[in-house]
């Protein structure tokens, strides 16, 4: 009895510790005090400020959010395409070559962000690429692609290797066989690769920081960093983070429910 209680308490304590910071921010997003921890009465003022600053288009906070989303979307789209093509190619490599490429694919994922960031920074200077939007997106594609490869490659393995040949046999050219038969088998892997790339890009700080150049391009993470250094966080960050957290939560629930339904469906068939 006591053991059961302890076991349960352990889980709850863990969850509380994990979620307390987020809960704190969410709670204090409904008050207008400048400093966190100082409750000055319930108010939606911060949310109103956030929405209004979006209207006049002048807020650097909202433009940072917009930059973050655009960069994440672009990086995710390009790395999904690149990663899928790479995974298909890697699958057809034989033995040793595949191992080597696989190993090389793993290095960027384990490499500390700071090293990726600095080395890309130096590379962009070396090739005289103006640092800004393009360089940040290129940098994000670089570290997102390996994750896509990693989520698509197993789907290639699960696929019946003969279906590509079957398509060719029935009259499909190489490109038709890829598009009509192989690609549809890879979609689940591509979707999870896309989501992974999107989130990796969203919360990247180090690489962005080194590759954004000096034109004043800010993503959410670099904005918060500079904001915090200026002394105290802008209070409007609290409602913004709450909203982002809720959006992610909803997304996760949708994905989980969908997966459960798919699993049930395939159970039923058997």
């Amino acid at each position, binding site marked *: 009895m006591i053991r059961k209680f302890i076991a349960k308490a352990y889980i709850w304590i863990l969850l509380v510790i994990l979620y307390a910071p987020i809960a704190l921010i969410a709670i204090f997003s409904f008050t207008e005090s400048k400093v966190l921890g100082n409750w000055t009465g319930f108010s939606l003022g911060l949310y109103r400020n956030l929405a209004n600053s979006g209207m006049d288009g002048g807020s650097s906070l909202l433009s940072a959010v917009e930059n973050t989303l655009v960069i994440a979307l672009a990086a995710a789209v390009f790395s999904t395409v690149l990663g899928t093509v790479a995974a298909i190619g890697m699958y057809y490599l034989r033995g040793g070559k595949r191992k080597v490429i696989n190993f090389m694919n793993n290095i960027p994922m384990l490499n500390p962000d700071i090293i990726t960031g600095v080395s890309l920074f130096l590379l962009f200077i070396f090739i005289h690429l103006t640092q800004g939007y393009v360089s940040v997106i290129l940098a994000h594609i670089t570290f997102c692609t390996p994750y896509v490869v990693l989520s698509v490659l197993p789907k290639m393995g699960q696929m*019946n290797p*003969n*279906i590509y040949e*079957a398509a060719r*046999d029935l*009259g*499909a050219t190489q490109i038709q066989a890829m598009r009509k*038969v192989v690609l549809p088998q890879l979609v689940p892997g591509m979707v999870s690769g896309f989501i992974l790339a999107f989130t990796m890009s969203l919360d990247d700080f180090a690489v962005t920081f080194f590759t954004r150049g000096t034109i004043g391009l800010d993503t959410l993470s670099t904005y918060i960093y500079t904001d915090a250094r200026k002394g105290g966080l802008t209070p409007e960050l609290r409602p913004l983070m709450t909203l982002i957290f809720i959006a992610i939560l909803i997304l996760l629930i949708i994905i989980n429910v969908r997966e459960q339904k798919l699993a049930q469906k395939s159970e039923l*068939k058997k």
Partner: protein
Amino acid sequence: MGKDNHIIEINHLSKSYGDVDVLKDINLYINKGEFITFLGPSGCGKTTLLRLIGGFAHPDEGSIIMDGKDITTVPPHLRPLNTVFQKYALFPHLDVYDNVAFGLKLNNVPQDEIDKRVRKMLKMVSMADYEDRDIDSLSGGQQQRVAIARALANMPKVLLLDEPLSALDAKMRKDMQIELKELHKKMGITFIFVTHDQEEALTMSDTIVVMKEGRIQQIGTPTDIYNEPVNEFVANFIGESNILDATMIEDRKVNFIGHDFECVDEGFGNDTPVDVVIRPEDIYIMNQLNGAQFSGHVTSCTFKGVFYEIFVQTDAGYELMIQDYNPFEIGTEVGMLIKPQDIQVMHKSCTRNEMDAEVIDDTHLRIFSEEFECKPLGGKYEAGATVRVGVNFNKVDLQDNQEDGILWGEVSNILYKGDHYHLLIRIDTGEDLLVDTNDIWDKGDLVGIKIAPKDIKIIG
């Protein structure tokens, strides 16, 4: 049967992967409308041959002619033939209808024609009610039918089938064999079937091509192949058989198991070592010695459903397998008789091991890259010279421990010859050694190999 009747001609086809020669100089023609089967154990190259015909791999040498046109380098989607793959290879994201319609849509067949043809094909394989079903919801047999319908929907001139029944259970396999055969009759097109199951090949085919290690061993009708195998491999692979060492005394007279027998074969020469094959159902067995050619006693008798499988120890000490409708009690003395036309005489591929050796010194030779002691050469050869040596099958000494031998190898084939085992040993360097022994070994055993100095004979 002129050349006009050939739908496919295969000339000097060779293919290797890395340093493994999968196909070696294959020559073959396939007649219009025939059901031809490539039969052989795994690794014999039958699937590779089918893949070359299908266009999924390209030969290193040789050509494939179809309907008078060279299709050796034509990509698979432009070849007028379709394939049924081993594991069906249906498209899991499409339903039954769209799977069958896949090829027709690619070829821009009008929609109403697609409808008509898909329905007809599904009806032909008795899957008419399954149009909207997902592939994953079908059983193995049903998936196989859809795969066949899909391949036939394109109206190919030749249908390739790559071990299509191997994933089905025994009962389903039998049913599908009959259905495939009927389908073949109905469609009237050429079927090229690949299998390792000799029974399947015998039941279904018009022509069987028996393959082993990348070479064609024999081409013929099922009855030809069964009754007149050209060598011990074919005899052993197709059906049960007694394979025995024999000596061709003269035309129409052969000696084996210690007796002379009348046979129908000629032209082997006098006193030539040969192999004979006698099918177990071709040995007549009776409870009396009167009228028998030789005698023996029963060592075992097992009921096999339709017949009894009887093992007999003959008067000269050979063990024979016999099939008969009547049971015989163990230990009884029986008489046996073999008719001349039931004795199939075959050339021996060789009568002893022969290989090149390098002279090291007067009493040592290098054989298969290892050093063997031999009888003094008497200074006839210089060190480094190459000589041809011969070793009789029964003079190769096999050891349990690999380390005890000068060479080591793996038992890769075993043939029982009535009173001894005939083994094929694959040496670690890739060469083969044939060995006659009374000891029992299993396939895959690793053995040490020794040869006594006096048994290594210089033959040139």
